[in-house]
C-alpha cells in the first residue's frame, strides 16, 4: 500500500500575540514558531501506521519555502520514506485551488493507493485543498476521517459527523482522505530521530518544472483574493481586568454578583 501525504508548515498561534503589518497584507512572522500543521501530523502518523501494518511506501509532499524542509524531515523521522518539496515561488497568492493544482502536478506521477491530507490547515482554515486535489485526480474521497480499515482493494473509513455521530463508508482504491485530529496518537519525533534521516534526499521541484502557468496558480489563477487583514475589534461587553491577582478576583466576583450569577 503506497501512500502520499500532503503536509504544510504553519505558525503556532495558540499563545502568540499576532501582529499585522501596516498595510494590512501580512501577519508578521518574526516572533512566530513554525511547526507541522496539527491535522497533517495525524495524517502522517496514520500513513506510517498503515505502512507498518501493510507494507508499502510513504511519500510526503509540501508546498513552501526552504524552511519547510523541517516538516518534511519531521515526517521522514516519523517513518515516511520519500519527500518532495514544491517551491512556493509563483504560489504566493494562490487560493486553495491553486495550491491543489501544484500538489496535483507533483503527485500525479507518483504511484499511490491512498492519498492523505489533514482535514484543514490551522492557519488559513480553508479545509479545501485535500478535496480539490481529489477532484483533480479524479479519485473517490472522504473528509473528516477518524478511522481507517484496509480491505482487499477497498478501504472502510469512519467519518466524523455532527453531534457525536460517525458515518462508515466503504470506498474503492485509490482514494483520498482528509484526516481529522484524534484519529491516532502521533509519535514523538526526537532530535535523534531527525538526525537519522538527515541523509535522505528531498526531491525539489517548482511551478516551472511542473509546467504550471500563471493562469493556473498565483493571484491570476485564484478566484479568492485577500483584501485586508485586521485584528478583530475588541467586542462589546468584553472588559480586560487589570490589577493584582486579588484585585482581579475581587472584580470578577463583583461582576458575577452584579449580573445575578450568585444569589
Amino acid at each position, binding site marked *: 500500500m503506497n501512500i502520499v501525504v500532503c503536509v504544510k508548515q504553519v505558525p*503556532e498561534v*495558540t*499563545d*502568540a*500575540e499576532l501582529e499585522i503589518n501596516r498595510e494590512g497584507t501580512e501577519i508578521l512572522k518574526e*516572533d512566530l*514558531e513554525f*511547526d507541522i500543521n496539527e491535522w497533517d501530523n495525524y495524517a502522517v502518523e496514520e500513513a506510517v501506521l498503515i505502512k507498518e501494518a501493510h507494507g508499502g511506501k510513504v511519500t510526503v509532499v509540501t508546498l513552501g519555502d526552504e524552511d519547510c524542509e523541517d516538516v518534511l524531515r519531521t515526517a521522514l*523521522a*516519523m517513518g515516511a520514506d520519500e519527500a518532495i518539496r514544491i517551491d512556493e515561488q509563483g504560489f504566493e497568492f494562490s487560493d486553495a485551488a491553486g495550491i491543489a493544482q501544484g500538489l496535483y502536478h507533483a503527485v500525479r506521477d507518483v504511484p499511490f493507493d491512498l492519498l492523505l491530507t489533514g482535514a484543514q490547515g490551522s492557519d488559513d482554515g480553508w479545509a479545501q485543498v485535500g478535496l480539490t486535489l481529489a477532484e483533480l485526480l479524479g479519485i473517490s474521497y472522504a473528509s473528516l476521517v477518524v478511522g481507517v480499515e484496509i480491505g482487499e482493494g477497498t478501504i472502510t473509513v469512519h467519518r466524523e459527523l455532527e453531534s457525536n455521530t460517525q458515518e462508515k463508508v466503504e470506498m474503492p482504491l485509490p482514494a483520498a482522505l482528509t484526516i481529522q485530529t484524534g484519529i491516532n*496518537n502521533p*509519535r*514523538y*519525533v*526526537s*532530535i*535523534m*530521530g*531527525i*538526525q*537519522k534521516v538527515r541523509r535522505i534526499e528531498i526531491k525539489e521541484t517548482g511551478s516551472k518544472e511542473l509546467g504550471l502557468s500563471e493562469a493556473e496558480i498565483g493571484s491570476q489563477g485564484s478566484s479568492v483574493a485577500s483584501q485586508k487583514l485586521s485584528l478583530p475589534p475588541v467586542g462589546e461587553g468584553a472588559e480586560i481586568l487589570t490589577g493584582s491577582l486579588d484585585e482581579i478576583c475581587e472584580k470578577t466576583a463583583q461582576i458575577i454578583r452584579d449580573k445575578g450569577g450568585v444569589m
Partner: protein
Amino acid sequence: MTPFRTSYWHIEPVWVFYLLAAVAVVVFLFGLFAHVSVWVRGIRRQTLPFSWRGISNLFLDGFLGRRIFKGDIAAGTMHLLILWGFLGLFVGTVLISVDYWVYHFLKGAFYIWYSAGLEILGLMLTAGLIWSLIRRYLQRVPRLERRFEDLAVVVFLLLVVLSGFAVEGLRLAAQRQEWARWSFVGHWLSLLWVHPQGALAAYPYLWWVHAFLSLGLIAFIPYCKLFHILAAPTSIYLENQPPQAIPVETRSPDDEVFSYRDMIFFDACTRCGRCVEVCPSTGAGEPFSPRDFIVWARENLLRKYHPLNYFTWLTRWANHRHTSEQGFDPQKIWHCTTCRACLDVCPVYVATQDAIRQARSKIIEEGIQVPSLLTQTLKNLYKYDNPWEATKKKRAQWSQDLEIPDFSETEEAEGLCYFVGCTTSMDIRAQKLARSFAWILKHVQIPFGTLGKREPCCGDIARRAGEDGLFEKQMEDCVELFDRYRIREVVTSSPHCFNTLQNEYPAFQALKPPEEQANFQVRHYTQLLRELVKVGSLWFENPLHVTVTYHDPCYLGRYNQVFDAPREVITAIPGVTLVEMAHNRANSLCCGGGGDRVWQENLDADVKMAEIRIREAEATGAEILITACPLCLIMLEDARKTTSLEHTLQVMDLNEFVQMALSLEHIPGEQSVRRR
C-alpha cells in the same frame, strides 16, 4: 612425625575428578562468556586508565564491605563472614593444588596453622550462611525477597561446606593422625566414628559427593546471583570512572542505549533491596521499584545478546518463555524521580537513575510510547525553550518592574549572571523566589543581570527525559550565549540547572577543541549566600524567633553534596532554631518533582511523595519548611494545601526566608534580649 597433607587419599580413579573439574570450568567459562558478551555490546567511548582510587575502593567496598555495613551492621557482618570464609577456603583449596602439583609445602608447623585456619574459615562461612537464612526466613527482613534462587544458593553453599567438614571428619577418623586435633572441627566429627574401618569405607563416597558439589558450585556461579562475586568488584572498580558523553551525532542505530558500565552494574546487583527501601516512588506505593527495573534490564540484555542466540530456535523458546512470564512494564520507568537515593545506598554502586535515563532515551527515540503530556512538554521545549506552551517573551515578565540589567542587550556582561531557569521564570509561585533573590543581591549591592527573554532552558528537562538531542542543542545555545556576552560567573536558582551546568556540560565540552569549550563557573544561590554571610556582607540585624526545618533538594544535596551551605545561612539569622526531619542530608526524601515528573500525567499513588515529606516536616514541630529549589517549592506548597497544613506550616524558599529576615523592623526590646 612431621604433619603433612595427603591428597587423593584412597581416591580412585583420580582422572575422573580432573574430567569433572574440566567440565565445571568449561561450564563456568561459558557462563562468564555470556555475561561478557553482553558487556561488550554496551556503548563505550572511553579508555579505562588504571585507577588507584578504583583499587582502594575495591579493597574498602569489596574486601571490607564498607557499603554493606552502611546502615546495616548485621548485614555487613554476615556478608563479611561469608565473603572471607568463601575467599579463604578458595585460597586454601588453591594452595592444596600448588602443594600437590608444584611444591610440597603443606607440612610441619605451617600445615598445622593452615589446618586450623581453614577450620575457622569454614566455621565463619557456615555461621554467615546460617545467619543469612535466619535474616531472610525467620527475621524476615522486609527488603529481602524469598524466591527459590535465594534459598537454593545459600543451601548449595552450605552443603559444600558441611560436606567438606564431613569428609574431613571421616578422613581423620580413618587416619587417626596425631596432629588431627588442629583440624578441630573435623577432629570433633571424627570422634563420632568408633571404627576406623567403617570410616575408611564411607570416606571415598563422601569425598566424591563433596567434590561434585564443589565443582557444581563453580559451574553454577555465572548462572545465579553468585555472579556478583565477579561483577560486583568490577562494578566497584569502575565506579569512579568519569561519565561518558556520547553525542547523538556519533550514535549509530544499532548502538545499545545502555553503556558497558550500566551492564556491569546490572550484573553486580544482588537484589539486596536496599534501593527499594529508600526509593520514594516505591515508598509512596507507586507500581515501580528500582530493583525490578534493574533485574528486567539485565534479563532483557542477556536474552538479547546471549551467545546461544546463534541457535534461533533457542531464542524463540526463550522469548516465548519470557512473554508468558509477568515482567516489568517498561512504561513504569517514568515513575523514577532520578533522586539518586538508590545509588547512595547500593553496595555495588548501581546508578539506577542513569540507567533509567538511558532506557528513556530509547523510548524517546522510538517515539511511539512517550507519555502524551511529556511529548507536549518536549515539543514546547524545542519551540519555546520552556516546558510550558508560552512564548519566550513571558520569560522575563517576573522582573518587569525590578530594573534588572538584561545582559543580552549589552555588549559585554558586567558582573554575575543570574540564570533564572524555566520554572522559576514562569511559575507564579516560584517567581517569588527569583524576586527575593534579586532583592537580596540588590541589598548586598552585588552587580548582576539576567539573560532576559533570551535565556534558554539549560537542557535539564530534556536530559532527564532521555531526549539527548534536544539537551545538546540547548546546551550549545547556553554555552553560545554565555560566550557571546562574555559571561564568566553564573548563579542559578534551581539545583537542576546548577547540576546540569556543573556536571552534565563538562563531559560534552571536553569533546570540543579547547578554544571552543565553555568557560564559566556556576554556583547555586545557596553557595553564594553562604559566601556572602562568611565575608560579612550579608548579616542580620534583628532576630527572628522561629523554628524552621530544611528540606534538602536531591540535585543540591545528594547530587552535589551541598548540605551545609543552606543550613549555615539559616543559622546565621539570630533567633532561628533549625530542627532536622527524620530524613535529612544525604538521606533526604524526594519531593517527587524531579525526573520530569512535574511535566507528566499524574503518576502519583494514593499518597503523594510531597505529602509524605510534608508530614515529616510537620512532625518536627517547625513553623516554616525551607527549601532551595523551585520544584520542591511548588510540590511542597501543593502538598501543604492537600494535607490541610496551611495554618500550621509555611513553605518558603531560602531566598524568601532571608529576605523576610532582612526586612524585619528593628524592635529595640528584641535587641536587648539578644544582648542578654
